[in-house]
């Protein structure tokens, strides 16, 4: 059985921004294994967020194919992509990740509720993941009653609650202070090691790159380097 969770083959992404044709990705090929803790990094405009959006089935490539958890994204319609995101992909965005009218518990259970999981089962899973991300006792608080770091922990809890094939984290440490960033990274590293959760980061935060097991460097929409982390980033 293949250990590959994401396979990107010769992917190109062009779009038009005003009067300009932007070539965001130019023939990117990449394979990501289960249990990876990988950082896609590069300067602004290098195409890292675009690549994450394509992997997350939020956008479609101009050319090339992307397979996530064995599913060729080009064969999926709007609903198929929606179901794939719900069932097999977890998302952590930069900030304002959560639904402000829902409590930490309700945000964390959102994906499970979308899957139609019975409430009792859901409750068990959500309480476990909230405990795992260090939010035990804060489950009834709404986002505006939580710190930025705690909000990101709720987002991580939501992302891992459904046991997805991969968690895509777009600049997850961009809007928090250093101490919080370190603790979030500790948490995600721990989840990767103990639960085997696959994390793919888009980042230019050196702290993330230091923790990543593998670093893919994008420059001008192309992979400039793809290295196993030796801890000297």
């Amino acid at each position, binding site marked *: 059985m293949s250990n590959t969770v994401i396979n990107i083959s010769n992917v190109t992404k062009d779009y038009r921004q005003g009067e300009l044709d932007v070539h965001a990705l130019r023939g990117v090929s990449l394979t990501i294994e289960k249990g990876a803790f990988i950082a896609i990094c590069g300067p602004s405009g290098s195409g890292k967020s675009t690549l994450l959006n394509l992997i997350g089935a939020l956008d479609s490539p101009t050319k090339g194919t992307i397979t996530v958890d064995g599913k060729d994204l080009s064969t999926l319609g709007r609903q198929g992509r929606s*179901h794939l995101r719900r069932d097999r992909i977890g998302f952590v965005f930069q900030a304002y990740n959560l639904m402000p009218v829902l409590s930490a518990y309700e945000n964390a259970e959102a994906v499970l509720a979308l899957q139609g999981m019975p409430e009792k089962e859901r409750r068990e899973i959500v309480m476990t993941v909230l405990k795992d991300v260090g939010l035990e006792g804060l489950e009834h608080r709404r986002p505006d009653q939580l710190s930025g770091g705690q909000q990101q922990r709720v987002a991580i809890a939501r992302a891992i609650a459904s046991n997805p094939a991969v968690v895509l984290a777009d600049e997850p440490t961009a809007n928090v202070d250093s101490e919080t960033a370190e603790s979030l990274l500790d948490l995600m590293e721990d989840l990767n090691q103990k639960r085997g959760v696959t994390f793919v980061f888009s980042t230019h935060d050196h702290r993330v790159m230091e923790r990543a097991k593998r670093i893919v460097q994008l420059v001008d929409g192309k992979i400039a380097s793809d290295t196993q982390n030796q801890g000297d980033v």
Partner: protein
Amino acid sequence: MSGPNLAKIAWRNLWRHKRRTILTLISIAFGFFMAILMTAMQDMTFKEFIDTAARLGSGHVVVQHHEYQEKPSVSRTVRTTEVREVIKNNSRVVHVVDRVMGEAMLATSHDSFGAAFLAYDPEQENDMSLQFIEGVVEGEMYRTANDKGIVLGKVLASNLGAELGDKVVYTLMDKNGELTAGMGRLSGTIGTGSPGADAALFLLPINKAREVLGYEADEATHLGLYLDDNRESRLVADALAPTLDDGLSAASWDMIAPDLNTFVAMKKGGGVFFLIIIALLVTAGIFNTLFMSVMERMREFGIQIAIGYSTQQIFRMVMWESAFLAGMGLVLGVLITAWPYSWLSENGIDMSAAYAEQDVSVGGVGFNTTMPVGIYPENAWLIVACIVVATMAAGLYPAWKAGRVEPVESIKLV
């Protein structure tokens, strides 16, 4: 529970901007208040117009000679005993009266005037079938169908220079076209609310009129049928027509009094137009609230779609917000409308100052200067339905727009 509780999320979303939501609810409630009161004024005012016309004329539905409507004449009559047999099984008809109507020349020792007469049996009549807005101004009504009294409109009495107890001679053509005359003593004068009628109407005991006209004991120009609900007039007339003998016809009040019918139709049309304006204003307010609310949450919708919410779920969530606005707006509307409606339906609206000395009649029928207030239940439900439909319609575009959010674009919005 399985699946996300979209109603719960929608409910909480509404209260993120309390002031905006409350203002929207007030606008829905005020729209409901206006629509209910306006319709209530119209419903009861028109009901009173029509009922008054029926009281002074020949009922909500009239059975008459089939040519009477085109060529009114005392020679075109109906035998009421037979028709009463046909009508008695119709549960919508609550009261039936014989009436003889025609024209005559009135003369006293002072003067003479032409006038219309209405001959009736006081023992057949009640408040539903015959009631004069100002009532008896002077003297009293005659009490039996054979009474020797005659009652004149108050202006007619004045024009004739007639005093109570004076002889009044009426000259008219009888059933066979022969000139004939009768005499009565002035027993009273009445006010109808219509200056025109007060100057040209007199009342006769029906058997006296029959005697002068050469009628049989059950012969009349009209058989007047009264209903609890005048809106059923056409229905009753249509049902009755095929059961009548050849030579007779059944006509509803709107056919008998086309002027009044046109007036009511025009007023109703104006009322509907005004209600449409209210509905559009309320809808625009709700649309504005929902659209602003949706535009402020584009990033949030993007994230919801990214984590697996479907387009339909986002659409339904926003539509739930519309539904809650409609429901709460209606509840608030009922609360602010209940007391004023209750008070007005008991007391009416006194318009006497507004009308002052003006003629308060329509199509020759006088009406009360206290405007009655009351709404037909089906019209109240129609208003409720219109508000729900308008609110839900106002939510359609914002809901559609929310469901069509592209996560890639919207997630960039912070």
